[in-house]
């Protein structure tokens, strides 16, 4: 019994070929247990949460808060706020912490490696508040310019940096980034969207102030994600969205807010999604993540080498700790044509700018073809992939 059997979608065919899903950096597939948990929730316990004494509401509330417990214990975190995903989590920091704690002239440090979700919220805030944004350059070896980073920290109040690049798979020197930020008196937000699927981070030890990620990239459902926050940063946060469940009391002359995470979870929450995410955590808790991470990195490294031999340029380095993401381009075959040919053979890869245009600009390109591997992918699939690439290159180059 292989891991694949847990994922119903992986037995489907695409264009007459078995699906080989290599678009995991965009979203991962869901094991049957996750799908079932949500169906069962809707079939047995569906109700709105909090402040109700009836049985279903109790079960729904427990299901929802259970997921928070999963997150807190999985990541050893003090506060875990539910959001609709990484993007909303980062926007929550921009609105909830940024607006309350950043003044005109303050500095936010980003990097050229960021996903748009970790750039645009800051650009919006910067325009509104006259905050300066500095971008740490990416070096030719696909790593951050740590000297430039050290310099950029002067007067910085906040650093926002991606843990693992969704384009390159490069894992940044996060420990160093965090400790330097703190030394400079800045808070630091880690975009861990591509990290948590591979790496069970201890948030307390990690010592970042904020960490954002999405369920759908770690076997969980769409529509839910989380922001981890250290207690002291949490106390500095002002409400973002107003509404039901986030208040302590409301009068026409003003309102008071909850003091726990609910303060940032206005409205009916993502209940079924939380139940599904819990099931994903439970499923993942049975998986040896570090072993798979190494296995997949080896597959990625091998794939990258093969692609280079076939004349492709590979963007990334595939060193220890990096994610199994292989971004590449062929010198003459257009990446969109390439991806369509691959699709015709059952392979799902992504092309385009991967929501990281500043990084691609820096690399002097407008897009890549990206094959990203996850738990259920095998060396054999990588070999079939390379075989197909060889066929395409042979025919169309």
């Amino acid at each position, binding site marked *: 019994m292989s891991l694949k059997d847990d994922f119903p979608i992986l037995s489907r065919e695409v264009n007459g070929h078995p699906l080989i899903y290599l678009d995991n950096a965009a979203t991962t597939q869901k094991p049957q247990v996750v799908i079932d948990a949500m169906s069962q929730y809707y079939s047995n316990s569906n109700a709105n949460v909090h402040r109700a*004494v009836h049985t279903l509401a*109790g*079960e729904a*509330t*427990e299901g*929802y*808060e259970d997921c928070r417990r999963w997150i807190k214990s999985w990541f050893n975190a003090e506060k875990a706020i539910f959001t609709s995903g990484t993007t909303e989590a980062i926007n929550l920091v921009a609105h909830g912490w940024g607006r309350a704690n950043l003044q005109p002239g303050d500095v936010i440090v980003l990097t050229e490696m960021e996903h748009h979700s970790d750039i645009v919220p800051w650009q919006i805030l910067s325009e509104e508040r006259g905050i300066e944004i500095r971008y740490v350059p990416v070096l030719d070896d696909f790593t951050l310019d740590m000297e430039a980073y050290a310099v950029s920290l002067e007067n910085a109040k906040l650093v926002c940096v991606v843990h693992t690049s969704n384009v390159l798979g490069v894992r940044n020197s996060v420990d160093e980034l965090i400790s330097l930020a703190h030394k400079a008196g800045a808070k630091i937000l880690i975009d861990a969207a591509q990290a948590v699927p591979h790496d069970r981070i201890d948030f307390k030890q990690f010592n970042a102030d904020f960490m954002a990620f999405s369920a759908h990239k770690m076997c969980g459902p769409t529509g839910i994600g989380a922001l981890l926050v250290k207690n002291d940063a949490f106390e500095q946060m002002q409400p973002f969205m107003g509404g039901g469940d986030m208040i302590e009391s409301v009068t026409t002359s003003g309102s008071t807010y909850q003091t726990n995470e609910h303060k940032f979870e206005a409205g009916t929450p993502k209940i079924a999604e939380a139940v599904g995410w819990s099931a994903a955590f439970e499923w993942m808790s049975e998986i040896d993540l570090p072993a798979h991470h190494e296995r997949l990195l080896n597959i990625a490294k091998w794939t990258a080498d093969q692609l280079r031999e076939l004349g492709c340029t590979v963007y990334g380095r595939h060193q220890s700790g990096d994610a199994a993401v292989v971004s590449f381009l062929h010198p003459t075959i257009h990446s969109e044509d390439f991806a369509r040919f691959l699709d015709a053979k059952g392979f799902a890869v992504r092309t385009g700018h991967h929501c990281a245009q500043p990084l691609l600009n820096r690399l002097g390109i407008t897009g890549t073809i990206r094959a990203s591997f996850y738990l259920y992918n095998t060396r054999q699939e990588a070999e079939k992939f390379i075989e197909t690439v060889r066929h395409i290159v042979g025919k169309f180059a």
Partner: protein
Amino acid sequence: MKYPQALQDLIDEFAEIEDKMEILEYVYDLSDEVVEFPIAKWSEKTRIMGCQSEAHLEVVVVDGIVELRSGADAKIVQGMMGIITIAINGRKAEDVLQLKPDFAQEMGILNSLSPSRSNGFRNIFDKVMAEIRMKQ
């Protein structure tokens, strides 16, 4: 014996009731068992958070002996206080602190021990324990 006699008796009595309505009626009746905590003394400090109803308590520890005084506007909530009163009043603080909330589940008055589903019982119990720990 795991529990003091008075509590064990209560657990046994509850164990015989199956119907949820009857269980609730019994809890309702136990609202008489609380040592009164006059409304005049209710304050933010004595309030049990997370309860829908107004529910307040204070714990006094004299010569190491615990006394819970409590009250709530909802009778079933006050009944839960009555149960805890039976379980702890007149006993040594150090003994009381050994108590786990599981007994309420054995009694069938709790579907779940998780605070979010315990319908107030867990919040009452936790506050009582915290107060004792503070005042011990």
